């Protein structure tokens, strides 16, 4: 069993007022692919580097398997890391790069060669083993960095935005390769990215961080369907969920000219706290076009056609002010710019958040 456990792990940089990572609690199962995601500066990389031993843990503990590694140097942790910029040793060949860790561990030469060749075959690097990193393309360098990690058969893989330097197409392709490779090897992996699409597609579970605080850690599906707060709701999903602050009225929340019916219990919770408005969250695909003029009136500003889907960006009116709304529309029958359409959220697909605290109120 080599899971990873963060227990109230914090990291405060010297001279900083706020901790970069604040009491992080995560329980990562053996063989699990956990993705840490969040906007830049949220502490996701710091969390990873704390696990690697490259950043000091100022409070709390980190365990790999049964072992407390909180204050161990990186070399004693049996981890492998893939860096954002690959960090290949420029003066060594691909084979030497991949075998470096084994050489340090004192593995016999023939065994190193065997393992490096196996890994190279897996990553289609066999013909490049004799080359130096500078003679490789970006994608090949990325694979060498992966290879350097997998030859070691470590307890944990750490990946710090390994795809962010690849072009868009290669990124999508490599994303799938890494995910399937990880499932095949069954090695516990912690993966850091700022790209929520990567997080959703790769992770067994996704942990969203903001300002050093863990917002939610859940399976991609569950996180998409039940975001724990406004931040997660807005961060996960593309295009982002519509988050509209609307006053509570009898039977729902009020838009100008219409009332959108929502879950009574959550409105009750908000009212009992003395709040007169809530934040209504509706995903772009959760809107139904109504033909009889009922529902929220949206004036279309822009239509983005993506082929399979089309998204209409428009404005609706709440309490006299304009709010931006994104709605998925039929790709073969897109509205014209300036047109006014009426939409209602699908029943059961609305999310209610407290406007004051940002927490989820609906079930």
């Amino acid at each position: 069993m080599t899971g990873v456990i963060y227990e109230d792990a914090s990291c405060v940089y010297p001279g900083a007022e706020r901790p970069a990572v604040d009491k992080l609690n995560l329980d990562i199962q053996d063989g699990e692919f956990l993705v840490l995601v969040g906007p830049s500066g949220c502490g996701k990389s710091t969390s990873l580097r704390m696990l690697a031993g490259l950043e000091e843990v100022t409070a709390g503990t980190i365990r790999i398997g049964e072992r407390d590694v909180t204050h161990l140097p990186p070399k004693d942790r049996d981890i492998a890391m893939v860096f954002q910029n690959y960090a290949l040793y420029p003066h060594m060949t691909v084979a030497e790069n991949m075998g470096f860790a084994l050489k340090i561990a004192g593995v016999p030469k023939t065994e190193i060669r065997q393992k490096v060749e196996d890994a190279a075959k897996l990553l289609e690097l066999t013909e490049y083993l004799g080359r130096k990193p500078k003679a490789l393309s970006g994608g090949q360098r990325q694979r060498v960095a992966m290879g350097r990690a997998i030859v070691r058969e470590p307890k944990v893989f750490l990946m710090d935005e390994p795809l962010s330097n690849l072009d868009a197409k290669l990124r999508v392709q490599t994303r799938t390769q890494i995910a399937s490779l990880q499932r095949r090897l069954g090695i516990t992996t912690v993966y850091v990215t700022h790209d929520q699409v990567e997080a959703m597609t790769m992770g067994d579970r996704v942990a969203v961080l903001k300002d050093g605080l863990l917002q939610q850690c859940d399976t991609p599906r569950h996180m998409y369907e039940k975001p724990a707060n406004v931040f997660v709701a807005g961060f996960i999903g593309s295009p982002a969920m519509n988050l509209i602050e609307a006053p509570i009225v009898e039977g729902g929340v009020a838009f100008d000219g219409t009332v959108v019916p929502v879950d009574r219990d959550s409105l009750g919770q908000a009212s009992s706290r003395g709040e007169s408005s809530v934040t209504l969250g509706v995903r772009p695909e959760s809107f139904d076009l109504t033909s009889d003029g009922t529902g929220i009136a949206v004036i279309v500003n822009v239509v983005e056609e993506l082929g399979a889907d089309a998204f209409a960006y428009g404005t609706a009116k709440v309490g006299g002010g304009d709010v931006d709304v994104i709605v998925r529309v039929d790709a073969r029958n897109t509205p014209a710019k300036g047109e006014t359409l009426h939409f209602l959220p699908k029943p059961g697909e609305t999310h209610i958040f407290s406007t004051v605290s940002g927490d989820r109120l609906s079930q």
Partner: protein
Amino acid sequence: MSTPAEVVSPINTGPTGSAVKAVRRSFASPLASVLVILLTVLWTVPTFGLFIASFRPSGASATSGWWTAFAHPQLTLSNYNTVLFHSANFGTSGGIMPFLVNSLAITIPATLFPLSIAAMAAYVLAWVKFRGSDALFFFIFALQVVPLQLALVPLLQLFSGGAHIGTIALIPALNVSGTYVSLWTAHTMFALPLAIYLLHNFIAQIPRDLIEAGLVDGASHFRVFRTIILPLATPALAAFAIFQFLWVWNDLLVGLTFAGGSQAVEPLTVRLSQMVGSFGGRWELLTAGAFIAIIVPLAVFFSLQRYFVRGLLAGSVKG
């Protein structure tokens, strides 16, 4: 009068850019080229004169200028032969050859010692975080302002008598005065502040991720230093090696202070300076001796020059 807007605009990089260009253009002009060539010739002529003189027989040197050698070519290698092996007036019977060996025996260790110590110190100061590392670095950096002449007498005292407070011996008498050890130590000490500063700046620019990758791969700091830092720092190491070699090779003061008078240790420079006194009249031997002293640093320079490689880091991190 130029408008104020043109003068104070901080964002506009135009003026500086065009100034650089203007300077570059003026250097590229034919007039500048002629000037540079003229200066080069002026600078080189005396050395060239010495070089010619070193090949002229003693009689010719004494009676006519070196330039007359072009009109009446009368060249010989006997000066070199005499000065290297035969001249009995150097205190030894073998010419300056033993002192050439002394110079090498002083210079090579006095280059390698500071180089290896400074490289390690630079790595630690740049990459191993410990309390007070910045203060220590600034302290070492500040040591450069201390002129080495200031340390000569205390060092001499330390080498011969040790260091004492009252009757308590902090360092016992080392009894190394007049040996190679004293010269190596002195040169190493004098070189370290600059060496650490230069190498620190270079090593600190090696991408952090490379060192972290090494540490995560299971390497100790020493292993990272040896297998990653040293190969990547070769250009800086070579630069400093050349610099230090030339410095020690050409040094007269330290050699004279710590080895003056003991002929088994004395470097070539010390002997040559005494030749000026005893051979003031014998030009041809002096010039030959000087040229022998020049050949070694030239050889070192050209053999280490190939380590000045650009782009050692290519391919390691994003790019």
